């Protein structure tokens, strides 16, 4: 028997590898770190993420594929890798004081978060359905645990269980879809699937398989009608975990979603574009209307994240180079904006006692003018006001839709943005126009939270005022 040499190219999986190694170092470091120094594990995690981001940046333009076509280091995947690393680093900045205040500061928190990041990077750079699935599981499993990390709080446990059960359910759909697509095409490699479909006509098995894949992705990015878990999980999970998963999971899952559908299944585009357009309309509309009815900020942001998934789905329906780059830009803009909003909510909490009802924000502007300003900027950006990042993102996505003949979808998107202004402005009105509620005095914003908030707000403004460099990067992020 000949000696087989595997196609190993560690350089292209360097970002995921560095994050994994960091996770293991933090896991071992936990053993020797005294309880009052646990925050150093957080700093170490951030350092690992920064190194991983540099590794991703050094691969820019490499367009190298490896491990027998299982992963690729193309600019699309690398842009998402950078977005994911940024969201994880900002989340950890928010987490260090948060988990200390809630007395859950164990090193495993960072280990699980980093393991999830490794899964996300794998998912965003995978070019094989099996690897996409493994990335999906590797990102999800630690998040189930993180959602239940406040074990004293039954709502956190409930969030973990709910997320786990529905996540397992959606994984089964996804896996079944992979099996049927494999049955129809004889391969799980995305490029080979595309090549196989270019030659042969589709079959019912293939259609069902693709449908099940779409259901699997729809669960993960929380598209209506597969969104039922989202409000409960986002509400019950620790706020920093909610902040992290509301942005990073979307970046990773949408990355694989685009790669699978736009590049492996263009032969079936006529069918899935129509389905995706319907899902986008449902998701935007239901997300925004349901968000109108919420009195709790976390639930409101949960429904808002559902609505944003709908906007991003429009870019997939457009199925063009501009659609792809607009989705990348949108994911980055949404990441910094949403983390900024969650960061401000965390900044306004009083130690372990969080203010999560919108009416609790009354008068915050008088006590914490800067935090209130940051929250206002982020909410306006989420609503799509210029000159903030959210406006540019929406502009690009709707532009891509109009360009490819989906103007009606863009119109529905714009109408939805108008609806969303109402609920995004409710906390702002409370902060600036109501009399201060009880108990504001003596609240100090933790320096790390302030730093994260500053980075997020500067990014929101920078991406809104000078979007050109980021757009150019995203436009270079085409899948090879």
């Amino acid at each position, binding site marked *: *028997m000949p000696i*087989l*040499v*595997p*196609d*190993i190219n560690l350089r292209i*999986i360097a970002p995921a590898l560095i994050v*994994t190694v960091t996770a293991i170092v933090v*896991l071992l470091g936990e053993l020797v770190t005294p309880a009052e120094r646990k925050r150093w594990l957080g700093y170490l995690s951030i350092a690992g993420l920064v190194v991983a981001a540099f590794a991703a940046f050094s691969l820019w333009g490499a367009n190298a594929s490896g*491990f*027998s076509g*299982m*992963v690729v280091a193309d600019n699309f995947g690398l842009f998402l890798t950078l977005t994911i690393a940024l969201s994880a680093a900002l989340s950890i900045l928010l987490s260090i004081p948060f988990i200390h205040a809630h007395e859950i500061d*164990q090193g*495993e928190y960072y*280990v*699980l978060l980093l*393991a*999830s990041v*490794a*899964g996300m990077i*794998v998912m965003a750079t995978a070019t*094989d359905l*099996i*690897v996409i699935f*493994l*990335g999906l*599981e*590797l990102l999800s*499993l*630690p998040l*189930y*645990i993180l959602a*239940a*990390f406040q*074990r004293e709080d039954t709502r956190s446990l409930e969030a*973990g269980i709910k997320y786990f059960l529905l996540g397992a359910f959606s994984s089964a759909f996804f896996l079944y879809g992979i099996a*049927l697509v494999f*049955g*129809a095409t*004889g391969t799980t490699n995305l490029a080979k699937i595309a090549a196989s479909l270019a030659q042969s006509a589709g*079959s*019912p*098995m293939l259609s*069902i398989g693709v449908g099940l894949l779409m259901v699997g992705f729809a669960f993960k990015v929380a598209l209506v009608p597969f969104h039922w878990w989202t409000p409960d999980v986002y509400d019950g999970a620790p706020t920093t975990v909610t902040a992290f998963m509301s942005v990073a999971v979307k970046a990773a899952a949408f990355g694989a979603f685009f790669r699978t559908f736009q590049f492996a299944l263009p032969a079936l585009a006529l069918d899935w574009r129509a389905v995706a357009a319907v899902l986008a309309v449902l998701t935007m509309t239901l997300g925004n209307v349901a968000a109108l009815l919420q009195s709790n900020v976390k639930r409101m942001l949960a429904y808002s994240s559902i609505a944003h998934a709908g906007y991003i789905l429009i870019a997939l329906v457009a199925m063009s180079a501009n659609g792809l780059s607009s989705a990348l830009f949108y994911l980055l803009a949404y990441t910094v904006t949403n983390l900024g909003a969650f960061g401000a909510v965390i900044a306004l909490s009083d130690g372990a006692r969080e203010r999560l009802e919108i009416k609790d924000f009354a008068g915050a502007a008088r006590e914490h003018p800067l935090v209130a300003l940051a929250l206002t900027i982020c909410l306006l950006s989420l609503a799509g006001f210029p000159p903030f990042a959210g406006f540019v993102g929406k502009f690009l996505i709707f532009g891509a839709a109009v360009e490819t003949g989906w103007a009606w979808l863009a119109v529905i998107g714009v109408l939805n943005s108008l609806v969303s202004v109402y609920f995004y402005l409710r906390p702002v009105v409370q902060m600036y126009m109501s009399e201060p509620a009880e108990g504001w005095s003596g609240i100090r914003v933790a320096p790390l939270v302030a730093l994260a908030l500053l980075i997020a707000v500067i990014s929101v403004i920078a991406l809104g005022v000078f979007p050109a460099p980021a757009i150019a990067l995203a436009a270079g992020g085409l899948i090879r």
Partner: protein
Amino acid sequence: MLTSQFLTYVAFFVLSAIALIGAFLAVTLRNLVRAALGLILSFMGVAGIYFVLEAEFVAIVQVIIYIGAISVLILFAIMLTRGLMTSAASTQNSQWIGAAFVGMLMFAVLFFVAITTNWPLAQPHTISDLIPRLGADLVTTYLLPFEAVSLLLLAALIGAIVIARE
């Protein structure tokens, strides 16, 4: 006349019956331990069908993982949970109509796929050349998924400890 094809059909129907009866018992029995044993019966029927289909490796994996590991895990979980062991749980709740509808819909879709698909026939093979190829593929073509699985198991292990420790 007992041709090998005829015997294959007989084996298939007997094994299918075992799998279906096991599955039926698993969802209808009120005692959870008995329901789990019904599930094991169903797994065995499915493993037998894999043997009939000449997918020996999958069949053996089915026996080792599903019957050996997962069933034992389920039985352990039932026996270690207070009150689950003896009490008879209701097998239905108010959502059974919706669940039955969705189940039938899924069945109809898969049945449609199964009868309309032009299934490719596998090349004849012997198990002795299948296993080495599987092993070689795992450390060459599928090296990255193989390593990713190990990372996944590590994450699951850490997660289980975080959740379970006092």
